[in-house]
């Protein structure tokens, strides 16, 4: 069972990758990184999970949040633009210099908020596609190799069953 090693790797690597993504997001404005890269990094963490635990498990864990995260990302990005209205015009950067306990002097501004929106959208869209494609490939494969119809093909139930479970092996109409 090769997935055993993957699961072990997943245990160790997924948190590391997610933390790395966060790190890349936060430092992005001054060093290589940023919303796009961090989003892809986080998505690769989820991909590792999909590989090791199957897409159903991952879908149950984070699937319900993906669509909302896309909307949230757009919302955050637009809000960061609207905040610029305070300074006079849409999308104008608004910056505050804060003195934080551990980090010292930190510049915080709406472009960082915007980057957060980018991150949310990239990670959720990518993960959405990964989940969808792995399900689709599962379905196609089970259709192709699951071969010849165990269950009789029922035209009415196919659409719903697929929409609900997504992996329902589709039988071929035999007779």
């Amino acid at each position, binding site marked *: 069972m090769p997935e055993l090693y993957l699961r072990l790797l997943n245990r160790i690597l997924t948190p590391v990758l997610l933390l790395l993504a966060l790190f890349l997001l936060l430092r*992005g*404005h*001054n*060093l*290589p*990184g*940023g*919303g*796009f*890269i961090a989003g*892809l990094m986080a998505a*690769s963490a989820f*991909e590792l999970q*999909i*590989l090791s635990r199957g897409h159903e498990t991952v879908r149950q864990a984070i699937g319900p949040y993906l669509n909302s995260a*896309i*909307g949230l*990302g*757009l919302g955050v*990005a*637009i809000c960061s*633009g609207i905040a610029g*209205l305070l300074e*006079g*015009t849409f*999308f104008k*950067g608004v*910056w505050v210099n804060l003195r934080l306990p551990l980090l010292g002097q930190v*510049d915080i*501004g709406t*472009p*960082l908020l*915007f*980057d957060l*929106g*980018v991150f949310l*959208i990239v990670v959720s*869209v*990518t993960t*959405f*596609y*990964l989940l*969808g*494609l*792995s399900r*689709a*490939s599962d379905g*196609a*494969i089970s*259709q*192709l*190799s699951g*071969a*010849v119809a165990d269950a009789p093909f029922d035209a009415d139930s*196919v659409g719903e069953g*697929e*929409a609900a479970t997504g992996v329902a092996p*589709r039988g*071929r*109409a035999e007779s």
Partner: protein
Amino acid sequence: MLAASIGLLLTSGLILYLLRPERRAWAGWLAALPPLAVTVWQVDVSAASVFGWGAAAKPSLLDLQNGAIQAERYNWVESLGMVLSFRLDGLSLLFGLIITGIGAVVALYTHYYLENDERQGYFYLSLFAFMASMLGIVWADNLLTLFVFWEGTSVTSYLLIGYSHQSAAARGGARNAFIITAAGGLALLVGLILLGQEAGSYTISAIISRPGLTDSPLYPAILILILLGAFTKSAQFPFHWWLPGAMAAPTPASAYLHSATMVKAGIYLLARLHPALSDSPLWLWALLVCGGITMLLGAVIAIRHWDMKALLAYATVSQLGILTTLLAFRSEAALLAVVAGVLAHALYKGPLFLVAGIVDHATGSRDLRRLAGLWRALPLTSAVAIFAGLSMAGFPPLFGFVTKEALLEGFLKAGEHGDAAGWVALGAAVIAGAFAVAYSLTLLWEAFLRPDVADDQGDAPLTPAGRLRAQGVQVHHAPAAPFVAAPLVLVACGTVAPFVLQPLAALITPAAAAIYGGPVQKYVALWHGFTPALLLSLFAIALGVGLFLNRSFLRRALNLLPDGLRGVVLFQNILDGIYALGQITARFSQGYTLATQVAIVLLAAFVPVVAALRYIPLNALMPAKEPSLGAPETILVLLTVVSAYVTVRARTRLGAIISLGVVGVTVTLFYIFFSAPDLALTQLLIEVLTLVLLVLVFTKLPPDTRPPMQRIKQARTILVALAAGAFGFFLVLFNSSEAMQAAQSISGYFLENAVPGGHGANVVNVILVDFRGFDTMGEITVLALAALGGYALLHAPRVHLPDEKQSRRLRAQGGSAIAGGSPAIADPAKEEMEEEPTNLSANSG
């Protein structure tokens, strides 16, 4: 306070939505409060200057004609000179009072009309957003501010018409209304921008006081574009047909949007810009012809319809035509008639729609063939209908009579001044007036007064089943008191109005003066003496009664008109044509295997470059610097070429995937060599993700057993690949050429301003999120939309199921042709792989 009022309406819509109004008995009263508050505020703020209350001074109309009661201004996009500015003057005040006053009544009514409907909150949300947009239009003092709110009414109107989205009629009506008004909106935008550029200012109050706009060479274009916007919004011929289609909206929306307010937005726009644009023959004839046709068409067709709302819709179309025709003229009398007409129309057509809703609610039908004698069951409602209906017909001494007198007077005056247009308009108005009498009486008699369904209109072409049902309907649901009170209030206002014209003139005259662009001395009156207008009015009534008595003949005659002439049908044909064109394009560009689709995209990029190369001498493409090729670069280039070649020649899928990965990694290394860490990181991550995904999908598939590609296909693929490679090569070459390097580059600016301006040392990131934030915004929006598209694709039936015959043929082949492996499935697998793209595009098309 103007902006605050708009904000108040927006937030109260949201609050109502969250309150779940369908569960609370008092929600209707609560909903009526915000518009009522804004109405009271408007009266209060203009009390001293307009009505002469409280203040010591008498109302000084002359000050008001060019002065504003209140004005506000907010910055929006400073760098583009865009501002949100509002201004309350006579005309805005009149329209604002109509919007919020009727809005309060409709808000109360809605709660009873949509009782127990769990989407009531959503309706309130859209309704209040619409109300706010409408107020924005009439209060705006900037062309672009006006446009933004104008579009707001289009969108909210779409949502309101399509409220019952289960019904195909509602969806179709909403779509048609939206396409027409939005297309008109685009024309309007161009027109407004041209106007603003030509006038040198986007401030409306500045534009209308600026003389000589009609002499500009751009004037015809400006006028036509603005008229397109106004005519589509106000349902003027040839765009009149969307309004009856919009009657699929819930009745409160029909009453409010499609008779009292939104369709008047076009009228308002014409009135607002009247001082600046009206002094030309083009204005006169465009408005006269379109308005005249609309007025006649609406009036004649109205009587044909059995649905109360459809009849009222065509009556509204006719009224809007009359208002447009009046606006064609520049006389005080005509403009006074416009203002009085707008007010009167809101006060009788609004209640009539509301009554139609009550009847529908109480009996379950609005069909005149099935209704009769409602005065017995719904006495108060019928009284409202009778007062409003007689006002619509123009019987003395109701408000409708006053406005009809005024408009006939206006046309007469224009005619007497030797204006041929005046006589034309007068004739049309008399005919339209006669038909107005006929359809009003038909509505009142058949629905409310006649004793029995089968009295005198036995010719109603009902289906046999319909005739069975047409035994008359029963009132099964007595309306609640506030439900009837809503139209009652409006009708009471309309009935009292003719007797208080003196104080009302304080409201009407400044509005007319704002359209006229100077002081107005005339007044509307209930009794002018025995004038020609009165005689014409009486003649129209007599003619109308005659038409009413012969209505069955009229209906039969009108039903002979062919269907193909109807605007809706013509429009649907145009739409179908556009869809068909889209399908042909999709089939042409996407109806093949994935490889062909990719080839089409690549060639589409390649062709323009080849075309452009013809204009560039080849020696200009030489790089500015002598290229220096070190050992690392050479190795990388070789590695890339070799791994690309291996990918093409790979025997197994896994091999191809891995060597493709090597290509990606070498490209990443290039980025690192040329110090672009962000690009390298992104490329690497994308490479990892796609690689793993490909492995995930392809390794599980059975081995590829397809025969080798045909020679001709191979050659074609190689050609496309070479073209794509050449495309990239020349693009890079061009970018590094002397000419391009010498041209001023923006990178210097980015490098200098990243830290001081963007507060970040990573220039790439600062460009993404700050300098070019707008671009990124667009990109992530596209990304989010791609997720939507993917959702549709991935949830569609994924793999084409071959039909019975095809699959039997496949299985027959599968058994013989394939040796080894798993013969039973290998061939279908191949078939699926080839068919899938076609299939997907068929689904998405």
